[in-house]
């Protein structure tokens, strides 16, 4: 029995671990213990209300990776977000940034401005748990987004429909399986007209002096000030009014509820729960924090039926595993390259593949990425000198000296943060443990080997 299991009911531990995997990137046994002492609902509130402000160690990150301060490219910017993802004590702040980064996607390669990509992530940290109207309003003023979707080429005499179309199709109202949305082609054209004059100021290329921060620009003289008919309403709408109308739509509420459900709960949609979340969206004027509060506190979310039913994204796998080792106390070369590991597995952070973001769920895993995932996780868990692995070994050792193979495997799963695996996988691990008596090898080696086997199971690919 681990420390956690001794202090708290096994089911409570499992539910808390589940929350921390979904609202963050997982947690160590000791962290789960601390959160359980706080209580489930209080933990939800803690996660939903991160203290505003930059982390105290931002100066260290800037010092050791000075090129990321003026990040000219995505690869120059990566060390900054890697560090936050691996170490932030505000895990939901990073998780919601990851959510919006994929939903309101800006591609780093086209933008070619790492500094602006980091600014966009900071935007999501700042407003990502707020009202959806605010989020849409801010992203529509985000110079990177304006550039990414060509709005600088949208003029009152020749509107470019790109932003108007993606705003409706991919960012808010969505389309059904037949490719139909609850809006018309005319609504797309009208939205485009309303956003004419919204653009980013030109910045000099970084060839001479590195990048300059991008800024939003509204050009009144290039804005279509005529009356417009949009989703049944008429007026001299600008971008803000378009957003206000969009956010009121039931289709928008359902689209965002669906995306939140798929990201935080399960890869398989549950229509009843999504309808409930849709109602909350409309009752709260699109308050993302209120929706997530209800989602995390629901019996549906806590139920065993949705645990380990989401394929971990590469970022979840990489940073969740890195956090388990608890080995990053100061920025270094290893921390700076964690984002590369995610890229090798198919998720190039700060550079989503297109305006649709990443296709999640089962699509994350193919034979190539699976090998990358297993190799990375197994190599991380082999770091017995790291505080996290060392502590997990200690917890298994504390569970008892004469554990039978089944108890030994359970102790290892508990020590890794209440991981659950299916019966078949567990049988294989128990058989392996039975063949490796504790006299064959050093106890710590045997435990670490079991950790490595656990992260190599198909089950570890789920959260």
């Amino acid at each position, binding site marked *: 029995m681990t420390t956690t299991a001794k202090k708290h009911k096994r089911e409570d531990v499992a539910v808390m671990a589940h929350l921390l995997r979904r609202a963050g990137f997982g947690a160590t046994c000791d962290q789960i213990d601390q959160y359980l002492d706080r209580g489930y609902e209080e933990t939800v509130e803690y996660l939903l209300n991160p203290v505003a402000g930059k982390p105290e160690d931002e*100066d*260290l990150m*800037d*010092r*050791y*990776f*000075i*090129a*990321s*301060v*003026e990040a*000219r490219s995505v*690869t*120059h910017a*990566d*060390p900054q977000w890697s560090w936050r993802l691996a170490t932030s004590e505000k895990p939901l702040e990073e998780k919601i940034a990851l959510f919006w980064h994929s939903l309101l996607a800006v591609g780093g390669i086209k933008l070619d401005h790492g500094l602006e990509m980091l600014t966009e992530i900071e935007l999501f940290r700042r407003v990502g748990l707020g009202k959806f109207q605010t989020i849409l309003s801010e992203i529509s003023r985000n110079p990177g987004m304006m550039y990414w979707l060509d709005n600088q080429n949208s003029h009152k005499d020749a509107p470019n429909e790109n932003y108007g179309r993606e705003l409706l199709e991919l960012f808010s109202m969505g389309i059904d399986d037949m490719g139909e949305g609850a809006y018309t082609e005319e609504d797309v054209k009208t939205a485009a007209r309303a956003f004419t004059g919204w653009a980013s*100021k*030109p*910045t*000099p*290329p*970084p*060839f*001479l*002096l*590195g990048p*300059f921060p991008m800024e939003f620009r509204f050009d009144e003289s290039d804005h279509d000030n005529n009356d417009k008919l949009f989703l049944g309403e008429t007026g001299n709408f600008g971008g803000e009014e378009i957003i206000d109308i969009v956010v009121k739509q039931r289709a928008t509420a359902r689209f965002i509820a669906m995306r939140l459900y798929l990201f935080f709960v399960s890869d398989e949609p549950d229509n009843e729960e999504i309808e409930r979340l849709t109602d909350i969206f409309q009752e709260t004027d699109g308050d993302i924090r209120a929706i997530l509060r209800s989602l995390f506190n629901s019996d549906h979310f806590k139920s065993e039926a949705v645990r380990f039913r989401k394929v971990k994204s590469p970022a979840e796998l990489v940073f969740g595993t890195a956090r388990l080792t608890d080995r990053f106390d*100061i920025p*270094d*070369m290893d921390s*700076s*390259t964690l984002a*590369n590991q995610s890229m090798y597995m198919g998720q190039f952070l700060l550079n989503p593949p297109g305006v649709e973001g990443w296709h999640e769920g089962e699509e994350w895993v193919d034979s190539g990425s699976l090998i990358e995932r297993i190799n990375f996780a197994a190599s991380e868990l082999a770091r017995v000198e790291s505080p996290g692995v060392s502590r997990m070994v200690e917890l298994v050792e504390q569970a008892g000296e004469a554990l039978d193979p089944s108890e030994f495997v359970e102790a290892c799963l508990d020590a890794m943060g209440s991981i659950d695996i299916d019966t078949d996988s567990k049988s294989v691990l128990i058989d392996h443990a039975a063949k490796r008596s504790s006299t064959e090898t050093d106890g710590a080696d045997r435990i670490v080997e079991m950790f490595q086997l656990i992260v190599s199971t198909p089950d570890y690919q789920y959260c």
Partner: protein
Amino acid sequence: MPLENFAYSHTIGIASFLGRGFMNPVDMRLDSKGILFVLSRSNAANQDVRVSVQTLDSEYMYEFGRWGTDPGQTTQPTAIALDADDRVFVTDEFMHNVSIFDRDGKFIERWGEFGTGDGQFNRPSGIAFDSEGNVHIVDHLNARVQKLAPDGSFISSFGTFGTEAGQFNFPWGISVDAEDGIWIADWRNDRVQRFTPDGEFVSVLGSSGQNDGEFDRPSGVHVASDGAVFVVDWRNDRVQVFGQDGSHSETLVGDATLSKWSQEFLDVNPEQASWRDGAGLLEQEKLFWRPSAVETSEDGLVLIADSCRHRIQIYSRIPALASV
């Protein structure tokens, strides 16, 4: 505000991944002939690190110490110093050592390894020589300054981690003055500390803040031969100048013009020149962005490594300051 004790002279540099130009220059030193050795840090993962050598008239000469872990290579170089024989010493925070090259960039040897013992380092940063040829190295995660003989043998060290007088919190830059007094940019304590040649605490300069005499993570300190003290106020994007008594004299925030290399680039890339002109950022272009080190010459030049703008801004001193 017009400068009183300095006149902007010119700028050297252009962002460049190799050869002519710099990528995040974090430190620089002049050799005995007035040739400038600039250390580009970049990001370790982007492998653009190097020492590049050029005249103050922007005549590029050669480079060495590029990215890697083999002898003669550097990975996360932090600071550079030249001894009386113009041998080039480069500290490396990744390899926890000091690489030594001759003036032509030929690798000679390297000292140190990771550890807490004498002659071992945990992320060595600032480096400077005293009048006897001993080298003083800020061993920053060990929160101490080590003094090594010209042959690399350990002589002494001082400092512990903390916020009290004589203690350090992630120290970075170092300067040894004309009397072999030691000055340390005590980075995370937002102050500069002055010590005797034996490491005895003398005084502290500055505190946290943005006003004159206050610092936000000072990265470098440089004491000119006449005693003027230059503090690189890293996160305030400025350089403050003080007298030996700690009195604030002047603040530099950057006055850059196009370097010769940048002008040549724009001359052959007119579309780039057009974009630059249209961006309306010419005033902003002048300013320092995370300056990290200062060097001075005997003939009154002040060089500032403007690390996030990939250039060295150069000022000339108006002689009156020499009396401070």
